[in-house]
């Protein structure tokens, strides 16, 4: 199938438009269209993985159509070892969101499902675009459905949260756009490969790096531009939180790998310490912040920021490793770790938000204090929750372990102190996550609401079960994932190390 990626982008969008046209009156049909649309996208993502050639760093499943001849902009798609797993993750995570919203969403359900499906297509577009203009097109367009999702179906402070979310990301993106246009004016086209090959002076690289950094750091989010995330997560409906944590944050990391390192390698080398410092602050300081949260969603949100700190750390320690050892051999491990961490965090944080959603649907509270002893009334749910919590702390055998472990090992090569500071997360992560579990799941039944809880229904069981299998699979057998990424990361390393000066 030579236009598989196009289908992956446009099939969910078409399904979303169809659901919207069916409207709230035909919501029964609409729900099935949404489910089938997302399932079909997931099934089609299967061949993407199967037919992916793991021996090359070249872009695969390429498609190129002229789009805007005046700008030399193409509708260009293609995936490599970095983007392909993220495309699959996007397709995978939308299905649980649709199922989780099945009967919970009462207000304007047609638009709810439509928004998520359309967003799925746009997000896949972000990962698959090989033309910077097309990338930006999807990158910005994606904000619209998310803005509406938080604003319409969110909690009490949803308006504040969604406008903050939009403006933060918009501010970052506008400067990225300015940088992209600058490079277009220099090079005459928008192809990402062309921009990567474009020679740039150090001063140009610095400015472009800063512009990219604004866009990607907001998205990741990195300290100190992370403050939109706790608000957005707390106020978003469950599905919105899942997509936000599982996919949208990954776009920041993806941006660093796809744009910052290859396009501005010298500036990245020069400014790596700043990024590493911010990553370590995220890991440690935000870990402490997570510890004191009273709201379950907020706690998981801060935990996300800390975990994403590992991603940026893994990406940027490369330069320090090369400086120390003079060889590329160990440097790839940091990036491997960053990529695995992105996939793993997508699964785990999505699952944790779904777990909170399960509780919230029953009790209508996210406050930790309103729970206690959930295991007595919901034993099956408690088992899942404990599993995902342990994965979040990086327990060996779960996906959370692989990413963190690789990054910590790699940071040893860079500096003992980095590794020491990064390893603090093992303590902090365990502290805030397990303390959360202790207060919510274990202990005596806290109140009458908890006493009246019903255990998981079939839909919820399927959703959490599928995620649990994925988390364990990546944890026990990460080799296929690493193999897919290997050639691309090697290629990326040579790009990141090479100088453009």
């Amino acid at each position, binding site marked *: 199938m030579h236009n598989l990626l196009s289908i992956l982008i446009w099939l969910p969008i078409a399904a979303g438009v169809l659901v919207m046209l069916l409207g709230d009156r035909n919501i029964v049909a609409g729900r099935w269209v949404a489910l089938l649309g997302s399932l079909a996208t997931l099934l089609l993502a299967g061949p993407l993985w199967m037919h992916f050639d793991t021996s090359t760093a070249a872009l695969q499943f390429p498609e190129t159509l002229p789009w805007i001849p*005046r700008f030399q902009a193409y509708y260009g798609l293609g995936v490599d070892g970095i983007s392909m797993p993220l495309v699959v993750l996007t397709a995978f995570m939308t299905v649980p969101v649709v199922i989780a919203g099945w009967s919970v969403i009462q207000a304007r359900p047609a638009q709810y499902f439509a928004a998520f499906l359309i967003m799925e297509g746009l997000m896949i577009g972000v990962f698959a675009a090989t033309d910077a203009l097309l990338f930006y097109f999807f990158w910005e367009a994606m904000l619209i459905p998310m*803005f509406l999702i938080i604003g*319409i179906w969110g909690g009490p402070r*949803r308006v504040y949260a969604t*406008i903050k979310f939009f*403006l933060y990301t*918009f501010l970052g993106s*506008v400067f990225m756009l*300015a940088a992209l*246009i600058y490079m277009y004016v220099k090079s005459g086209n928008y192809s990402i490969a062309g921009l990567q090959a474009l020679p740039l002076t150090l001063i140009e690289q610095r400015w472009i790096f800063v512009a990219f950094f604004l866009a990607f750091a907001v998205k990741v989010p990195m300290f100190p531009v992370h403050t939109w995330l706790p608000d957005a997560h707390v106020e978003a409906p469950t599905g919105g939180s899942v997509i936000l944590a599982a996919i949208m944050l990954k776009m920041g990391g993806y941006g660093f790998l796809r744009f910052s390192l290859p396009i501005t390698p010298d500036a990245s080398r020069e400014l790596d310490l700043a990024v590493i410092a911010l990553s370590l602050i995220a890991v440690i300081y935000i870990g402490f912040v997570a510890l004191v949260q009273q709201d379950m969603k907020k706690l998981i949100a801060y935990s996300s920021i800390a975990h994403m700190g590992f991603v940026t750390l893994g990406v940027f320690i490369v330069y320090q490793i090369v400086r120390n050892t003079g060889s590329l051999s160990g440097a790839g491990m940091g990036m491997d770790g960053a990529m695995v961490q992105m996939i793993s965090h997508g699964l785990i944080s999505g699952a944790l938000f779904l777990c909170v959603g399960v509780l919230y649907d029953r009790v209508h509270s996210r406050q930790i204090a309103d729970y206690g002893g959930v295991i007595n009334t919901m034993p099956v749910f408690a088992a899942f929750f404990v599993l995902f919590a342990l994965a979040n702390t990086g327990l060996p055998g779960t996906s959370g372990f692989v990413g963190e472990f690789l990054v910590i090992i790699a940071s040893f090569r860079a500096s003992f102190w980095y590794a020491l500071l990064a390893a603090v997360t093992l303590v902090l992560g365990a502290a805030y996550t397990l303390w959360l579990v202790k207060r919510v799941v274990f202990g005596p039944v806290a109140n009458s609401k908890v006493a009246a809880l019903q255990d998981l229904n079939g839909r919820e069981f399927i959703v959490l079960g599928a995620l649990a299998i994925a988390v364990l699979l990546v944890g026990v057998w990460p080799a296929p994932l690493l193999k897919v990424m290997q050639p691309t990361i090697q290629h990326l390393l040579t790009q990141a190390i090479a100088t453009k000066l």
Partner: protein
Amino acid sequence: MNPLAMSDGLMSWSSLAPAVTEIWLVIAICYLLLVDVFAGERHRGLTPTLTLVVLAAGAALTVSCGHVTERTLLFNGLYVADELGYVLKLAALLVVAVALLYSRAYLAERGILRGEYYVLALTALLGICVLVSANSLLTVYLGVELLALSVYAMVAFDRDSGLSAEAAMKYFVLGAIASGALLYGMSLIYGLTGTLDLTQIAARAHAPLHLGVILGLVFIVVAVAFKLGAVPFHMWLPDVYEGAPTSVTLFIGTVPKIAYFALTLRLLAQGLAGTEAQWSQMLAPLAVLTLVVGNLVALVQTNIKRLLAYSTIANVGFIVLGFVAGTPDGYAAALFYTLAYVLVALGSFGVILLAGTRGFEADRLDDYRGLYQRDPLLALVMMMLMFSTAGVPIFVGFWAKLRIFQVLWESHHLWLVVIAAATSVVGAYYYLRVIKLMYFDDPQGSLPATTASAGVRLALALNAAAVVALGIRPGPLLDLCARLIH
């Protein structure tokens, strides 16, 4: 090139063909005035319908007779027919038709559905066409005044409304000052170059510049800035937008922008091309002020017409930036921005018109709370238009802003890029606020149901669809704009 030789002294029909739009409009205006007198009170709807027929026929005539393949001078060089004029006239005809279509129910509900309104709209359109094809300072002034006087009268059309009368008065007085400035500037240029012909002015006004030419240029730039609504000559704009009947706000918020783009292009970029270094220096601070003031003041508005007025000012800032770039690509970018803006403004003022009913103006922002529940189509269209003006893909507004950024980079205006980018983020906030009111809030009290007819709704939906279609495939329009300028 001697213009006399071109027009050959004697005029034959074929030599007048490029001016067919204006000729047709003059004839039609005279007939419509008569028809309206004889139609009387009973057939109030006759003139509006006939006007749409006139516009359709005008478009058909323009397409069949008015197309020129190369630049042609008529009327002893007073008038130029080129592809730019041809396309802009067609665009103006279309926009006027859609604007009048949106307005009809509004006018009828407020008892001001009168033939004169339509005649004034047509005379304004005539002024626009003259301006678009002007090749002499005299023709420029003729077009500007014909347009302005028609519009002053339209603003005051609801004669029982004190607010409208006040707005019209302000507009007229300030407009008169601007006209004075324009005339004074023109007289200086004429005195120093000895010609009114823009082509010849271009040939004579170049470095080393006489100080008087620069002085004249200053006055002309002031007048142009006033017409466009650039800060600090923007004072009239919010008051007029707010005070005028909404249908008139729709009118003056859309079609004249095409004309004023042409005014800027013909006067500054073509006629005074030799002074580009000077006027682009004058326009740059104006553009920055316009962007900053427009976007910041829009943040605190409570009236949606005023909000959109400041949004207009902010958008004008971008159009002026296109001229600041001072290259054909820059003018093409400004043209693209203007057309995209007009398309979006047409829809957004259209939504305001349709959201109101008899006795309910729907002009406060609070009236838009929960619009989604009152009328999902209006809310959806408005949301798309707001995202478009904010510059978010998949809408045409994104490409308009992108193109301006591009030409600014190409002409090495780093700081203008940064300011434009930063202010457009500020601007996004108030567009989001409108969406928030419509989608996230519940309606206040019980508002009357909207009464727009199916046809008008279809037009509005098509308007929004065009914004999306051009947002996904901007290529053809971009190419067209570039071709028209080069």
